[in-house]
């Protein structure tokens, strides 16, 4: 079982109207929680987590991947990110050839910044591109211009880092042509990896409130389905192959860190609101543990200052829940769900029906969703729950 480290950086220059992530725009949140000392606090948390692992007999191998997400990790000085990475190296070790990624806002990085990351051991940058169409970027409250993205990717190329770009489809007012333009622009950057996410409107966001008030149209499932199909066709034609519902890559360029989540590996989540997962850390051998940090940086900082692992809560994952997670995560992947690894052989007639309906493809013991099954993934998962007697 491999081990990964996720480091959350809960700061942004401004909050985007659609975003419900755990992020803050103030530079100082009081009580010693600030951008300035964030890296130091995160490193203290890593030590506390390492101590917890030791006390609970959780022996992890060196990290196979480290991922900085946010928020906007690149709002911090590059040296801070490098310092946190160094701490991971000191505490757990990092595999040779490990994948070290940071998310980046195209506005907050320049060539010098990227060079500093590369020198510190980073291997990959994931740019929040979202769209190449100015009016869509405005609807999404994004401040960058398409030109910033290009500059960022070129700087990463020059520094020898791999790049990925994220796109969002389904923003109010985005036409099918707008979306095609964005996908083609992403492909045109020459990146090896692309993520495309349907805009999910959470009610407690500015956009959610504006939609509820009738000021913006509600994203339409049919429109999003059409856009998904466009993305899949254009990416595939450009040699970027889907490997997870929302992710496409040239073979060999998949995000190993994210694959870890879907393959249910262990990971330590560092930073406010970050989740950790230990597949075999429960009191019973089969029960896993998932824990998550307190959400607000102030409380998080206080807990760390008091010498506590700053978890808000945790859950024991029962056998049935673990099976549910294996099914729901495995069915998102091109490699598919490993039927042979399930605790009991599932009912073949049910699986045959899913195949007949064009929702899944069977390759040996692997069951993977078709294009239709990717779009109707919840249906496929629920049917598979039934088939497995859940």
């Amino acid at each position, binding site marked *: 079982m491999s081990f990964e480290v*996720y480091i959350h950086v809960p700061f942004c220059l401004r909050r985007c109207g659609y975003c419900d992530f755990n992020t803050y725009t103030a530079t100082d949140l009081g009580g010693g929680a600030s951008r300035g000392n964030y890296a130091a606090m995160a490193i203290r948390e890593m030590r506390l987590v390492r101590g917890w692992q030791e006390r609970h007999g959780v022996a992890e191998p060196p990290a196979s991947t480290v991922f900085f997400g946010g928020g906007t990790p690149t709002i911090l000085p590059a040296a801070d990110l490098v310092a946190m990475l160094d701490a991971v190296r000191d505490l757990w070790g990092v595999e040779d050839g490990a994948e070290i990624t940071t998310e980046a806002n195209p506005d907050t990085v320049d060539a010098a910044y990227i060079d500093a990351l590369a020198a510190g051991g980073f291997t990959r940058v994931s740019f929040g591109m979202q769209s190449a169409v100015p009016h869509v970027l405005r609807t999404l409250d994004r401040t960058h211009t398409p030109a910033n993205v290009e500059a960022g990717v070129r700087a990463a190329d020059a520094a020898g880092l791999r790049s990925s770009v994220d796109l969002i489809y389904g923003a109010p007012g985005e036409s099918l042509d707008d979306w095609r333009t964005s996908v083609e622009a992403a492909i045109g950057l020459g990146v090896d990896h692309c993520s495309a*996410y*349907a*805009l*999910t409107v959470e009610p407690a966001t500015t956009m959610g409130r504006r939609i509820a008030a009738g000021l913006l149209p509600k994203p339409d*499932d*049919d429109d*999003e*389905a059409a856009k*998904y199909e466009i993305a899949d066709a254009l990416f595939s034609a450009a040699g970027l192959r889907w490997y997870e*519902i*929302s992710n496409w890559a040239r073979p060999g360029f998949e995000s190993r860190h*994210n694959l870890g*989540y*879907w393959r249910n590996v262990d*990971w330590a*989540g560092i930073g406010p*609101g*970050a*989740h950790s*997962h230990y597949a075999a850390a429960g009191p019973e051998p089969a029960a896993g543990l*998932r824990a*998550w940090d307190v959400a607000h940086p102030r409380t998080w900082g206080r807990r760390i200052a008091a010498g506590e692992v700053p978890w808000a809560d945790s*859950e024991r994952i029962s056998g049935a*829940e673990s099976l*549910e*997670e294996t099914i*729901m*995560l495995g069915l*998102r992947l091109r490699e598919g769900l490993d039927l042979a690894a399930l605790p009991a052989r599932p009912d073949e007639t049910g699986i045959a029906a899913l195949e007949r*309906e064009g929702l899944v493809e069977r390759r040996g013991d692997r069951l993977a969703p078709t294009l239709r099954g*990717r*779009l*109707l*993934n*919840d*249906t496929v*998962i*629920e049917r598979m*729950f039934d088939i497995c007697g*859940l």
Partner: protein
Amino acid sequence: MATQHNQPGFTDQSLIRNFCIIAHIDHGKSTVADRILQLSGIVPEREMRDRFLDRMDIEQERGITIKSQAVRVPWTFDGTEYTLGMIDTPGHVDFTYEVSRALAACEGAVLLVDATQGIEAQTLSNLYMAIDHDLTIIPVLNKIDLPSAEPDKHAEEIAGLIGCEPSDVLRVSGKTGEGVADLLDQIVMDVPAPQGDPDAPARALIFDSVYDSYRGIVTYIRMVDGELHAREKLHMMGIGMTHDPIEIGVISPEMTPTKALGAGEVGYVITGAKDVSQSKVGDTITTASKGAAEPLPGYRDPQPMVYAGLFPIDNAQYPELRDALDKLKLNDAALIYEPETSVALGFGFRCGFLGLLHMEIVSERLEREFGLDLISTAPNVPYEVTGEDNTVHHVTNPSEFPEGKIKRIVEPMVAADIITPKEFIGAVMDLCQDHRGQMGTMEYISADRVEMHYRMPLAEIVFDFFDQLKSRTKGYASLDYHEDGEQSADLVKVDILIQGEKVDAFSAIVHRDKAYSYGVMMTKKLRELIPRQQFEIPIQAAIGSRIIARETIRALRKDVLAKCYGGDITRKRKLLEKQKAGKKRMKMLGHVEVPQEAFIAALSTGEGANDRDTKDKIRAAQKTEG
């Protein structure tokens, strides 16, 4: 607590006054009744709680009295202690039958009218009923403490109706207690004492019975002649059964066992009978030995006016629903039911109710007191349908509507009386016309209020007529109705088909003119309520084999959540578990999963959609008839 001189079973009839209170809902009857209990001293001040007499939770919440209660109240007038039997009556139109039972147990009626509102249609109809029972009427205006009270105006109105002087109308405030003592004095002075024969064989009228989970059936009686004693075998003359009484007593204001009940007194009997059929309202109780030869004149049996199916959402609750209905029936003689099977909803019961409020209260009690989750189908009135072969079908459920050619359909009619301020006459006329009402006469009951008389199909009233009347008259109009024969009408059955399959629970019998709007609105509603599925789902409305409206639920193309990273997994798993639980609550109609909420919402009434699309579709549907 005041000691009472007059003891049950030993109180001379000349000292007894039995009365009821007739009042519209919200006119403050319960407040006045509470005040009477307090003044008489039988409820100590500190134990007084609002609406002492309304025992059931629902009654307290809705502020309406469903079950009559009979309380023995002492009142001293001119140095003599009198015994008042106060019978609380319901004020809503659905409970006319219960009012009639209460009236038959009294010699007098207090007509209680809100001094800010004036008399309402249902009060008027209950007043006429009291006059028909030869009761002495004591007119009273309540809420005179309110600044908006207009006692002079409304006293005039009441005087005009019952033929007294405006100055004879008493003025009270249940809230402050003002005038309530005078009211009790007036009752002693005006209400005649009972005139039964104390030496004759015992005869007591059953005017109510209540199921109490600790005591079994509690039967409320009004002694007419003779005496009943504890430990004396009782005989129910109508059903011909004999019981040992476990207890007889009076309510003052809690149940108090007594040795005997004498002529003219109001009290209760507990026989240990477990089945309401052994304590039939309207029956006469006498003694088993040396009993009376002739029973008292009975009551009219309640006739259900509205039928609806009640189905447990979880079909496994069917036996519990049956037990719950059996129990409710014990204190709700008007409720009738028989088993029914629906393809869409499974096993349930076809129930007959006095009216819509009665139906609502029954479903609410079933859910609240018995913990059942229920779906009720759209309310229906009883039709008489004659087929071409001259067979007559009694249809209380659209599924009983015969196939093939129909010769004649007869529907129940009601005479509806509406009292409204005169500025709403036009609005009321429009509403009644929309509901196939034929106007009769109209008279002014005061300078600015009129009473309008209509003959209307009952079916038009049971749906949402009352709500619309209230909304079109800013809440001022009041409605009363009673059966008024039947009439043939051009009615059709509209079926709703989901993916070509008829869904019995959505079928409705409607007037031909309304069939199109019913079909269009129902198909539209269902299109919104049924979630999209993997395939396209046509939803159609049809009269016989002719489709009159159609909507399509497009196939679902996407249900996936875009992201599922480390921090999303728990949330996503829980969401899927919730969806899975939700699916278990869905009904499978053919291959289509229909959520329970769709049944509930589609069957609930509500203002018809007035949007452009609905109107266009209704017009298009009507054209197809050509």
